[in-house]
């Protein structure tokens, strides 16, 4: 990182470097959502709308505590609500903050055909650049979390930016800032994983949730939004969080072998017919006849 260049290497009047010099670590940003302490207040939903400048969109009441049925092109942060009956007939109200997971192996970016429409920053943020978006929605095809949403008026796709504009200025994302219970944390991936595992251990030790654990799915190379789930064995019950998300098989085949096969095949085809021409030439019938009007 650029800051690393200005780290002090030697200093006058000291022997050796400064304390901590030479210590470096990759500063991957990460958002930690501790679902066990989320109260479903929706402050993060409001903060997201405010920071990103969107009006609150129309919604429908469907007998839940969920603001609206799904995330939308102008509603990137949704607290999913599920009422689940547990094995002992007790009832759990599960709240999960749904937003872009900022995958290390982003399926949206893999699928996108448009030059520069999707970028992944060194810090792990996956960002859409609507100026280059062509509206094909291949990102919708590639995403295992159903995050990119199409705006039929602008013909562009939108999603959570992890507040790349705020993070770039050294601030935490808007949702983090608004959280009243402290269930949202923001920092380096390393620190957040450490905190998440400590919290999961605490839940396992002090509650009946013996399967409490961290959600950082390997299938997409890990994510830059991670969860602490009380029941990590069944992530689906938290508003359909996929158990083992991956970039879809056919998207990998399409953007992998088929792309190469197609490219090589095209070139071989054009070269092949050209070779035929210089080897065998044309099927001449009767030149004199053919040149007649």
């Amino acid at each position: 990182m650029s800051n690393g260049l200005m780290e002090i290497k030697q200093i006058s009047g000291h022997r050796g470097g400064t304390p901590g010099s030479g210590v470096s670590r990759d500063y991957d940003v990460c958002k930690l959502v501790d679902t066990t302490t989320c109260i479903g207040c929706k402050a993060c939903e409001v903060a997201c709308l405010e920071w990103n400048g969107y009006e609150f969109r129309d919604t429908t009441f469907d007998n839940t505590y969920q603001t609206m049925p799904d995330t939308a092109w102008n509603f990137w942060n949704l607290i999913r609500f599920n009422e689940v009956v547990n094995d002992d007939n007790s009832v759990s109200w599960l709240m999960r903050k749904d937003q872009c997971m900022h995958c290390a192996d982003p399926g949206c970016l893999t699928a996108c055909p448009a030059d520069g429409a999707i970028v992944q920053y060194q810090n792990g943020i996956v960002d859409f650049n609507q100026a280059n978006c062509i509206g094909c929605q291949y990102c919708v095809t590639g995403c295992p979390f159903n995050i990119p949403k199409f705006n039929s008026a602008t013909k562009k796709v939108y999603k959570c930016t992890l507040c790349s504009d705020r993070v770039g200025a050294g601030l935490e994302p808007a949702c983090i800032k608004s959280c009243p219970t402290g269930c949202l944390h923001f920092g380096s991936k390393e620190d957040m994983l450490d905190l998440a595992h400590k919290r999961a251990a605490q839940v396992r030790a002090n509650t009946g949730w013996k399967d409490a654990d961290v959600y950082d799915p390997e299938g997409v190379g890990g994510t830059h939004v991670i969860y602490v789930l009380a029941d990590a064995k069944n992530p689906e019950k938290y508003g359909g969080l996929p158990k083992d998300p991956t970039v879809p098989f056919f998207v990998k085949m399409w953007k992998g072998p088929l792309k190469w096969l197609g490219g090589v095949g095209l070139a071989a085809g054009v070269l092949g017919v050209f070779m035929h021409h210089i080897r065998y030439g044309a099927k001449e019938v009767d030149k004199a006849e053919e040149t007649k009007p």
Partner: protein
Amino acid sequence: MSTGSITRTGTVVPQEQVVRYTFPERAAHWINGIAYSYCMFTGLALFTPFLYWLAAVFGGGATIRFWHPWVGLVYLVTIFWMHAKWKRDMVAIPEDEQWKKNIRPYIENRDELVPPQGRFNAGQKQFWWVMFWCTFILLITGIVMWFPEWFSNGSTRGLHWLLTVCVFVHSATALITIAAFIIHVYMSIWMTPGSMKAMVEGHVSRAWAMAHHRLWYEKITGRRN
């Protein structure tokens, strides 16, 4: 141009020439060809980043994303138009098997070893049926890809896998048609002189008709039923 006669279907036929394609057949073919070419080039732009520059040629990524499906419908309609015109001529006949067995001399331009063919030879028929059936696959998968937002809301999310299958199958099918298209274009422009004139002006010489489509020639000249 020497004096000729204009047929009822709008083809000027000079002396010693026979009608190969009527005006409606040529119109259907060329509207289809233009639509196909547009879909091929814009589709390739969306298929691989190496060819994304083609998007700029056709007005930019957002523009081609808008038009590709619509032009695809033009392609679809004209395929059906051609099918109405040619379906009887595209039916397999016993001589086709002979042609397929002698594909090697045909490729090597030793046409004296190739059995006589009808209005379309067995290879043309193969090309036609590949394009015809691939059109259906492209249509079904293409409609799904036209509106991916159908698969990005809660109620239809369970069908998201279908979208991933469709993008793959659409691309793979299109590549098959492009392989066929390369051969088609090569053969019409370079390999078989006279066939381009046949599709543009509608007529061919008697010698050409006899050499390439003897059964057809004998039929239209009444030498064979």
